[in-house]
């Protein structure tokens, strides 16, 4: 009780100094809490982005390597479907055979972003150590182009392709992959019995735009798929627009003119535990050296847009700013505590003369420092909550983009000797997520630890002085 009375009175006497120290610590701790909250918000946003791109529960994603695009003039020697305009007019060439394209519609379901991976590799990955579940998928793009009859004549425009993303879903592993992240808003999801059916689940945004509902029909490479469900993905952006059974996608899809039967181009993997992810990633890289093996953490580094900028801001600048402010706050607190101890030398000398042990006096000073630290910590947590609230209120939605080139490559030339033009529809996975900085338990624990450390650090410098204090010298000091 006496300890508390003495501590309270002393803090009241040094109220201005105590407030100054506490405020310094509060600013430092508040910054740490805010930055930690922002980082947690960014991590959450990243997690949401990754989930929306690759689905809930997916630890590792394997995608086939990017295929080599046909170069202009290389013709169709590799079997890809190209559209060419030459002296003979507009032509569509498939597997080396060309015919007039004027007025024709081209519909193509292709995997031009990723090379195919044999389905047997899915089974091989499933046998690896620490692999919990594996599912193959086909990320395809349905592109349809109608060639104008006057195409190729001087001044004629390029045809505008219509394209949408089609995801071939392994109906025996529905818990993995992009469909797993969504919520069915109408109808039902795919199921095991749909494996070979012409049924589709449509993204809610796509369904709204194209006025699709359960029972509607979507055409993929001229095949009619009945819409059995509408799925709402957690974030807006560019999720696959149509989900069909993997077997159907394999039957209809091509990659550079070759059928994708028995192939996938994306493999979704779940590890036994988070700690096993790096090891599983290494094993898959070793098994499929040419393909891209991406974990959530490595995928995060590929994300561009304001989300990655914010992540860098929070993780780099914010963290260092917090550290610098904290060090400054600790230094100021320590110096002021030492100055306070210096002013109280006679007081401590008197207490020693009264028979107070050095450690009791140190405990008194440490207690005072700790109290200031805790007050600063509490204020810091308050500031942190305020900072997090402000960030959540004013932060714009963050966009994350993973760009990929997809769809058939269209090559055109204006005639002999004329410049060749080519383009390929680029589909970017862009996700917009709200930035919500939420104060985590870890941040609160960090704040408490920092407050205690700050208080103890400041007190320890003063205590070091007290421990060295000889009572006779202390009493000889002029007050």
């Amino acid at each position, binding site marked *: 009780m006496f300890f508390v009375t003495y501590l309270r009175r002393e803090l009241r006497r040094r109220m201005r100094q105590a407030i100054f120290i506490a405020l310094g610590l509060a600013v430092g701790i508040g910054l740490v809490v805010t930055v930690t909250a922002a980082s947690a918000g960014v991590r959450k946003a990243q997690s949401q982005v990754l989930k929306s791109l690759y689905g809930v529960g997916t630890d590792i994603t394997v995608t086939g390597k990017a295929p080599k695009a046909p170069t202009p003039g290389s013709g169709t020697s590799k079997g890809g479907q190209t559209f060419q305009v030459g002296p003979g007019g507009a032509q569509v060439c498939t597997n080396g055979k060309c015919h007039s394209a004027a007025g024709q519609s081209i519909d193509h379901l292709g995997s031009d972003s990723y090379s195919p991976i044999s389905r047997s590799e899915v089974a091989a990955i499933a046998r690896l150590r620490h692999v919990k579940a594996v599912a193959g998928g086909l990320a395809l793009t349905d592109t349809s182009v109608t060639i104008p009859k006057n195409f190729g004549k001087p001044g004629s425009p390029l045809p505008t392709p219509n394209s949408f993303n089609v995801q071939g879903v392994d109906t025996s592993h529905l818990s993995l992959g992009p469909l797993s992240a969504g919520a069915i808003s109408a109808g039902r999801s795919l199921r095991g019995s749909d494996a070979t059916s012409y049924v589709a689940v449509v993204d809610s945004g796509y369904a709204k735009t194209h006025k699709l509902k359960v029972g509607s029909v979507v055409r993929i490479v001229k095949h009619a798929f009945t819409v059995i469900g509408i799925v709402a993905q957690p974030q807006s952006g560019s999720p696959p627009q149509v989900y069909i059974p993997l077997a159907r996608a394999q039957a209809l899809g091509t990659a550079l003119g070759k059928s994708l039967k028995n192939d996938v181009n994306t493999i979704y993997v779940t590890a036994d535990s988070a700690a096993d992810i790096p090891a599983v990633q290494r094993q898959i890289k070793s098994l499929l050296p040419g393909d891209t093996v991406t974990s959530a953490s490595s995928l995060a580094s590929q994300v561009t847009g304001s989300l990655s900028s914010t992540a860098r801001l929070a993780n780099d600048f914010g963290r260092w700013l917090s550290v610098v402010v904290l060090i400054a706050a600790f230094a100021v607190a320590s110096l002021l505590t030492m100055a306070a101890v210096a002013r109280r030398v*006679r007081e401590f000398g008197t207490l020693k003369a009264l028979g107070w042990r050095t450690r009791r006096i140190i405990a008194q000073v440490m207690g005072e420092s700790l109290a200031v630290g805790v007050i600063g910590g509490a204020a810091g947590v308050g500031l942190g909550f305020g900072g997090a609230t402000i960030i959540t209120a004013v932060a714009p939605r963050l966009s994350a983009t993973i760009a990929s080139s997809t769809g058939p490559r269209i090559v055109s030339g204006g005639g002999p000797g004329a410049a060749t033009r080519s383009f390929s529809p680029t589909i970017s996975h862009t996700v917009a997520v709200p930035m919500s900085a939420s104060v985590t338990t870890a941040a609160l624990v960090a704040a408490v630890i920092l407050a205690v450390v700050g208080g103890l650090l400041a007190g320890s410098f003063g205590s070091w002085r007290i421990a060295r204090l000889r009572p*006779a010298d202390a009493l000889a000091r002029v007050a």
Partner: protein
Amino acid sequence: MYQLTDVTKLYVKGRQTVPAVRDLSLQIDDGQWLAIQGRTGHGKSTLLNLLGGLDRPTSGSVRFDGKDLGRLGESEVTRLRARSIGFIFQTFNLVPTLSAAENVEAALIPLGVGTAERRRRVSAALDSVALADRARHLPGELSGGQQQRTAIARALVKEPKVLLADEPTGNLDEDTRDEIINLLEKLWRERGLTLILVTHDSAIAQRAQRVGVMSKGQLAVGPPAQGTAGGSAG
């Protein structure tokens, strides 16, 4: 009570070694009142610090109830100070943030006395110096004389064997000085204390049983005076 034998205390100041106390031998009996006089810088306070265990002699021995203070560990000396030695300072040395009662209570903290017992003893101590009505006042709200009386209560509350007073009236006016000395003398008589009092004031020194004069670190002590307080105290 005290047995000092060939005590020397040297202070090193830069390259110089300054003898504050030189080859001092002295015996102070239980219940005796010794006044020490002398000019500033001749070792009075150093001697008091040695007697209180606040400093250690460079050579020689300071024995208190048979224990050599120079050879005791820091914690033992601290315990001895807490139990047996009371200090009174010229500048009172009260903790400014604590009330008169809390300042007195501070002397009981190292003894581990329970709260209720502490309150009882503090109340009695303040009563004995006629400050019961000022118990809740902070030192800044008390006069010099009241502050010194608080300091006396703080020194006596633990019922020490010896009271070491360093110029206890040095900061007080004449009337207050007399009031404080009368109080000290009364308490000394009533409690059978050993009182060692450093003073510049010959009038005060003459009231002691024995008077010693410090000069250049050496003490010349006269015989117990007749007709003094000490004489009557026997």
